[in-house]
Structures are given as C-alpha cells and as structure tokens.
C-alpha cells in the first residue's frame, strides 16, 4: 500500500481513500462531526480541516482542506496541528457554539458529547456572541428517541441514516440558513426499528434515547462487552451499568456481525436484566407438595436421595433446554445426561426462522428466531423439537430436567411434566415450569454470568458478567457441573472456574471448537468456518 504522511507519520491508504478515513484506520484522530464511516460524505461541518503542505507533487493546497472529502495521495504531507489548522478549528467551533444552548448540566449526552470534547480540546473557551440564541422546543419524533433541536449541530447524520441505512427516509432538512432544522416530515413520528442508532450517531444531545432520559450521567456508567440476546443475530453490545443496575445497551462495532448497529427491541432487553419480580431468587424444594425455600446443600442432598431411589436411566430421562442457554450450559447438560443417565434426550425448541432480505444491511439484522443460541444447540447435537417427538419421549420420562424456560407455550408438554417422578428446574426466571418442579436451582441472568453463543451465521461470541448477582443464585454452568460431579461421584474440589468448563468443552469437542482457549475468544468473536480453516491449516503444517 502507498503511504502519505500525517504530521510526519507515514499512513498507508487504499486508492481513492480519503485522508480522514485512512487516518482513523491508522488510529490517528482528526476532529470531525459529520463524517461517519457508514454514511456518505457531505463535508459540511468543516471541523476536519487539515493543512495539506504538500499535495504529493511538491505544491501545497491553496487553503485548508476538509480531510473527510480529500483523497489521500502518494507522498502527500499533512499537518493536523499547525497554527493554521488550529485557527481553522477554532473558528468552526466558534460558529458551532454561537447558537448552541450549552445546557450540558441537564443534557444526557454530556460526558460523551463530541461537541463538548472538541470545544474543550479545540475551542477558544470564550464566545463573542451577544445576541439571543435560536430556540426551538423539543420534539417527540419516534417510539424510541426524541429530538432537542436547540442542540443540533446540523451534521445531517440522522438524515443520512434514514436515507442510506434504514431506507425509510423519515428524516429531512427543513428551512434554510440559520433556520435549517433536521426533523421528521409533517410531525410524523418515525417507525423504523433502529432509532436508537440515531441517538448513537448523533454527535450531540439532539437525539437521545427516551429510555435513558435523565437516568444517569454518562460518566457514571461502567461498560462490559456482551452479546444481545434479542434474536439469533447476536449483535455485539456493551452493557452499561451503574450501582448494579443496567441503564442501557449500546451496540459495539463488529463488521462481521452487526457493523455499528442494533435494533430497538434488542436495546429494550436491558429491562429483563434488571427484572426482579419474576426472578428465581433462592433454591427451593417440594416438601409435602409445597415449594419451600431450602439451602443449596439441602437441595443437592434431596435430589441425590431421590435419584438413588428412582435410578432413572436411558429413556426415563429427558431434558428440555431453551436456546437462550449458553454453549457451555448445553454442553454440560448433554454430558450430564450422557454420563450419568446414559440418555441422549436433550430437546430444544426448534425454530424455523426467517430473515428479511433487503438492500439495506440493517434491515437484515432482526431475525424471527428470538433466541441467541439455536445454532449452538444444533452444533452440539441436541435434538430439535421439529425432528424429534418430544411428547412421546416425555411420556416415558421419570426424571425431567428443564434448563431455562423452553416450550412454555406447549400445554401438552407442560401437562406431561406432572406425570414425571422428579422434575428439576434450573433457571433465573419463573415460568410455567416452576410450578411443576420438585427442585428449583436459581440461576443467573445474562448480565450476571459468563458464556458464549453461536449466532445464526455460526459466529462464536462470548459475553462477560456486568452485574453482581445475589449470593443465593449460581450460574447455570456451575449448577450443572455440580450435578455432574454429584452423579459421577467425583469429589467436588473447589467451585470450578468458567474457563475450566470452557476448556473442557473445547477439548472434548475439539472437532467443533478447535481446542480454543478462552482467552483466544476475543471481544469480536470468531466465525466457526474461519476456525475450522485455521485448524485445517494447522493440521496440514503439523
């Protein structure tokens, strides 16, 4: 690749690439507002000015150039720091602020606001504007976001988003000159399913999420990488939390999965992470027909006694698992059935899912499979409910294990649960299964535990714990591995680590997972196809 120079540092670029995009790729920062890698270049904010001291032919550019719209050229030399550039930025900042309300104290964007950051870094710190500022009211523009036009810096990212990314064209530019506003048409609210992204790409507090309004100062939020559980796409997200409460979910860029985006429905799954009412908070056991609170030890002992008495085996043991469960949980459940009960009857609710076809990538994000890990269940060889007769399997079951809350809409299955001798429910939330269970092992929710999923394209992605769980609950992988130890009578050493479970899975299933160590599964995951290719080449070179 050819190079050009930014402040004497060589920067490689592709032919036709603009200065700013090459700089950002090389990890260099040039302040900008209107440029966004996903959107067309309009070069209107004028913040990204640079001084091209040599166009590559020995001659300087006649004036400051906007780096977002200027082609990089071989041997071009650019200064982003000299006095001329700083003066250029100062004047753009001054113009941007003459009509800006600067209501940072009550602005939700404060702390993560590009305007704030750039005025701090590149502004003069004082204003000579002595006239009244432009004032508009705030507007309710959609189901998920609202618009505070006073704060708008007219970068038009929102407008380009509905035109170029969702193709819904709900935004437009109105009026001219200093009265220019960006808004929805004819007071019509937006209905696209991706409005939260507009709050993300709006560089200021003009478009903000209603859900997050006035809830927390941005700098209070702690951020943990995770994966959205809203559907089988598995958008990469950050769980943003404070004081053990999730405040919002934000998409994390991953070009292989969700690019920069996620849908609004996915964003709303944060509510489930904070949910308390339906929570299975403590271990419970059925004593004389009634569910009572017990200790973990009592529960394990009671289950062990019952199993000793029943000695369920083979066809008498059935497990149902939902596809919100992680790969590790499914793997342990399968082992438990195989190794302790010689059964392979682990069923998951199989979904026929569809995904819209569209020339707009973002419209293909949402799939009809509303769980994140069906591909994982399939890969691990669990039995899909459409290919196997779960009802007839249940009819001969003495022991029923339910992990999560699968099949809750299938009354015949629920009814059959009553006919089993022992029913164990391992889950973080109550459901129809809970009432029918004899032993209830309270698990942890998505924001509390670790795990990994396989998305619809078999992209393997892990997530990290964000919230501190109550001390009465345990992660499902731990419960399952404890049950496994109990059944195989191997002494439970100390509590296993997640990484050990993971290692166990990838080494036992090395054909599927290539013996991958947990540290190697980074924040953007890995595609199984790539992994296979890697291990093939490894095998060949070995």
């Amino acid at each position, binding site marked *: 690749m050819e190079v050009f120079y930014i402040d004497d540092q060589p920067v490689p670029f592709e032919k036709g690439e603009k200065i700013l995009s090459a700089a950002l790729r090389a990890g260099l920062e040039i302040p900008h507002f209107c440029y966004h890698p996903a959107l067309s*270049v*309009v*070069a*209107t*904010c*004028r*913040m990204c*000015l640079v001084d091209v001291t040599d166009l590559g032919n020995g001659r300087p550019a006649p*004036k*400051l150039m906007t780096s977002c*719209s200027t*082609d990089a050229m071989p041997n071009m030399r650019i200064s982003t720091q000299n006095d001329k550039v700083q003066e*250029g930025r100062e*004047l*753009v900042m001054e*113009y*941007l602020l*003459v*009509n800006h309300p600067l209501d940072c104290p009550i602005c939700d964007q404060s702390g993560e606001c590009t305007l704030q950051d750039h005025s701090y870094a590149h502004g003069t710190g004082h204003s*000579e*504007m002595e*006239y009244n500022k432009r004032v508009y009211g705030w507007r309710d523009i959609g189901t998920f976001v609202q618009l505070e036009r006073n704060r708008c*810096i*007219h970068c*038009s990212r929102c407008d380009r988003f509905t035109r170029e990314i969702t193709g819904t064209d709900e935004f*437009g*530019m109105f*009026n*001219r*000159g*200093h*009265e*220019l506003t960006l808004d929805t048409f004819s007071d019509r609210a937006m209905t696209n399913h991706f409005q939260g992204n507009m709050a993300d790409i709006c560089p200021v507090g003009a478009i903000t999420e209603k859900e997050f309004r006035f809830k927390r100062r941005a700098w209070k939020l702690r951020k943990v990488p995770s994966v959205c559980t809203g559907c089988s796409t598995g958008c990469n997200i950050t769980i943003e939390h404070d004081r053990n409460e999730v405040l919002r979910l934000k998409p994390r860029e991953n070009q292989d999965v969700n690019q920069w985006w996620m849908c609004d429905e996915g964003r709303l799954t944060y509510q489930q992470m904070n949910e308390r009412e339906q929570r299975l908070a403590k271990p419970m056991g059925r004593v004389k027909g009634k569910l009572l609170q017990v200790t973990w030890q009592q529960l394990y002992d009671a289950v062990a006694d019952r199993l000793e008495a029943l000695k369920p085996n083979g066809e008498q043991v059935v497990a149902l698992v939902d596809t919100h469960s992680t790969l590790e949980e499914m793997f342990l459940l399968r082992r438990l059935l195989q190794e302790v009960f010689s059964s392979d009857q682990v069923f998951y609710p199989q979904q026929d899912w569809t995904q819209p076809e569209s020339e707009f990538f973002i419209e293909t994000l949402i799939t009809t499979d509303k769980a994140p890990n069906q591909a994982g269940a399939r890969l691990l060889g669990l039995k899909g409910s459409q290919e196997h007769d779960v009802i007839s399997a249940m009819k001969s079951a003495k022991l029923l294990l339910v992990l999560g809350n699968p099949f809750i809409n299938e009354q015949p299955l629920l009814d059959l649960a009553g006919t089993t001798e022992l029913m164990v429910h391992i889950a973080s939330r109550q459901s129809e299964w809970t009432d029918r269970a004899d032993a209830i092992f309270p698990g942890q929710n998505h924001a509390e535990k670790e795990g990994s999923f396989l998305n619809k394209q078999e992209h393997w992605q892990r997530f990290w714990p964000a919230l501190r769980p109550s001390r009465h609950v345990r992660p499902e992988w731990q419960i399952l591995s404890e049950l496994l130890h109990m059944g195989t009578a191997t002494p439970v050493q100390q509590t296993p680590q997640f990484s050990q479970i993971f290692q166990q899975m990838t080494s036992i299933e090395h054909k599927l997972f290539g013996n991958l160590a947990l540290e190697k599964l980074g924040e953007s995951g890995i595609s199984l196809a790539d992994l296979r290719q890697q291990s093939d080449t490894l095998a060949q070179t070995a």
Partner: protein
Amino acid sequence: MLEETLVLFRNIRTPGYDGTLDSYRKAGGYQSLPKALAMQPEEVIALVKEAGLRGRGGAGFPTGLKWSFMAKNTGKPSYLVCNADESEPGTCKDRELMLKDPHLFLEGMMIGCYALGCHHGYIYVRGEYFPAIKSLNKAIDDCYREGILGPKLLGGDYELDLTVHTGAGAYICGEESALLDSLEGKRGHPRVKPPFPAVAGFNSCPTSVNNVETLTNVTAILEMGADAYKSLGSPNNAGTHLVSLSGHVNRPGVYEVAMGVGLREIIQELGGGVRGGKQLKGVIPGGSSSPVLRADEIDIAYDFDSVGKAGSMMGSSAIMVFDEDTDVVKLLHRISRFYNHESCGQCTPCREGTHWARQLLRDFLQNNGSERKLNRLQRVGRNMGGTTLCALGDAASMPIVSFLKKFPDDFRQYYATAS
C-alpha cells in the same frame, strides 16, 4: 464614444424583431446548427476551445475545456444542463435572451448537446421568470412542431429532446451541483466535489452545466468562426458579453459590449453617468458577491482578468453603481440579508456566519455599532471565506470584507453615542 458590439443582441436590437421562430429564421437563424452537425462532435468542442469562450455564469471557466472533461464511454447517458437560474443580485441578462431571442439560445444549446453527445438537455430556469419560461416553452414547442427538435434534430439523424424545468425560488440552486440535486427532485444542496458533474452529475451521469449566455455564444462562434470571435474581445477574454448595468445611473439596462472595454466608459457612456449629476461613490463590478470598488478604482478594462487584477471579480458582468448619497452600511446590510436568507445552511461557517454578520450590521443601523463590533464583523466575514463547501460562503464574505476595508468611516458614523 463607447458603443455596443452586437453579436448576441444583434436580433434584439433590430427593430421589428419579435423572437419567434419565423423572425429568427428570417434573420438567418438555425444556420449554425447544420454547420455543427456536419462536424464531428470533438471538432465542435475544439472550435469552442479555439474561440476562447469563457463561462458567463460567474467563474469564467473555459467552456471548451469543461466540455472536454466529460467522462467518456461510461455506458451512461450524458447531459447538458443549462443554468438559467440567474439569481445573483444585479444580474438580469439571461432573461433578456430567453425572453426576446429564445431561439438564438436554444440553437446554442442544441449545438452543445450535439458536441457532448447528449440526447436530452435540461434548462433549469429561475422559478420567478414566468414570462421567460413561457417564451422558452413556446420556442421549444415550435421547434418540435417544425421538426427541429425531436427524434430527428433538424431533420438529420440525431435525436434530441429539451425540457424546461423551473426552480422554486432558491438562489443556491444556481450553484451547479445544488441545481442538479434540485433537478433530480431533491432539496437543492451543493454537493461535495470531486466528483465533478463532468463525471457524476445529473442522476450520477456525466453532465455539463452551462450558463444561458455561454451557450448562446456557441451559436455565434459556429456562425463567425473562432478567429473572428476571438478578435472581438481582449486577450484571454474572447468575445462580447452582456452587462447588466443597474443602480444610480441614468440609463440602467443590459448592454452588449466587447470584453475589455473600460468599466468607467460603460457607466458613463452607455449608462449615461450617475443619476442626478451626483458624484460616484463606488461600484460593485460583478454581482453583489464581488468585492466593491471605490470611485477611484474603476479606471480598468472590464474583463475577467483585469477586474481580477483590481482585486475584485467580473462574475456575471453585473455592474451595480451607487452615488455619494448612498448609505453603504444599509447597502451591506441588504446584501448580507440576502446571503443569510439564501444560505442553504448545511455547512457551519455559512449557516452561522451569515446570520451573525446580519445581526451585527443591524446593530450598526440601530446606532449601536462600536469598534469592537466592527472588528468582529470583519472577523465573522473573513472567516466565511474559503472555509465553506460551496462558493456562497465566499460570496457572503467578500462584500463584508471589502466594504469594511474600503469604507470604514461610513461604519463609524453608526457607533453608539452615549446619550
């Protein structure tokens, strides 16, 4: 005594000429087009280049060169779009042509289309020009009826359609890329360049945007040949041009003169001097965006290069004259109001700067000026220049900077007096 050099206005100045197809034909019209059709398109472009024609839309860009930039073999249609938006204050020459001699212009447009290989040309007319729009539409209808336009251009084997499209009252739609957006049915916003229209213009196809007067000149070049055309003007400024003379002169109007005649002569001899025997105070030599010249600065030749050397621009050849009684603060306020009103608003310095400058000037008019505000006005004006996406930022900047430089005392009289 300075006289008009009649090339484009030859018919218009002929008594009894009414601009209809009949009278145009009688006056020798539609003779240039067959000449062009007998040539190869490249030869037509070479001829226009050779004649040294420079664009009359404002920038004076060589037309032949612009045409030779058109992307070739793209597999897409190419377009010639005529810029008839004429909205720079002071300019009113294209209207004369469209209204009084539409066929002379249309013939040039047809030649241009042939030279560029376009089979569909658009004329984007300023929306307020109702009579001109009517006249153009009638002329085009007549051409279709007479078999000049249509599947067989002039009965030959070249297919050409022309369509008149009317603007909706935005000055910015005179800027060529905003014009193309508007023509595509979008909000007229200047585009990022590159790509230039010659590569991706109307509907992303190769497009040339040319002014009405520019295209009308093409008819004349085909008629008289490159050398005769060149001999009319001054070096590097070929031909004649239409000068819109307005303001405090005795005989305002549109005059056709050879490039390079004296600016003062135009005002004195064609315009009959300053109205009411008053003294001249200054001249805006090229439409309201061009830097102002003081009365003592106008002894220059009136062509692109000479006015440029004098620190201003000839732009669209619109001369605005003002006398000694003129309040230049009011004048500048009026001009600034215009650019504020017409800024499309998408880029920061122009959106905020045009309004800020207008507010500052209003302060002066309310006897609330000060040295500080004068400096600020100068800074706000200067900072819009060269920092914006399109040239409207410069257009708003140049009058402010030049008025403050040339007439500082006029602003001082509006300083706040302690009362």
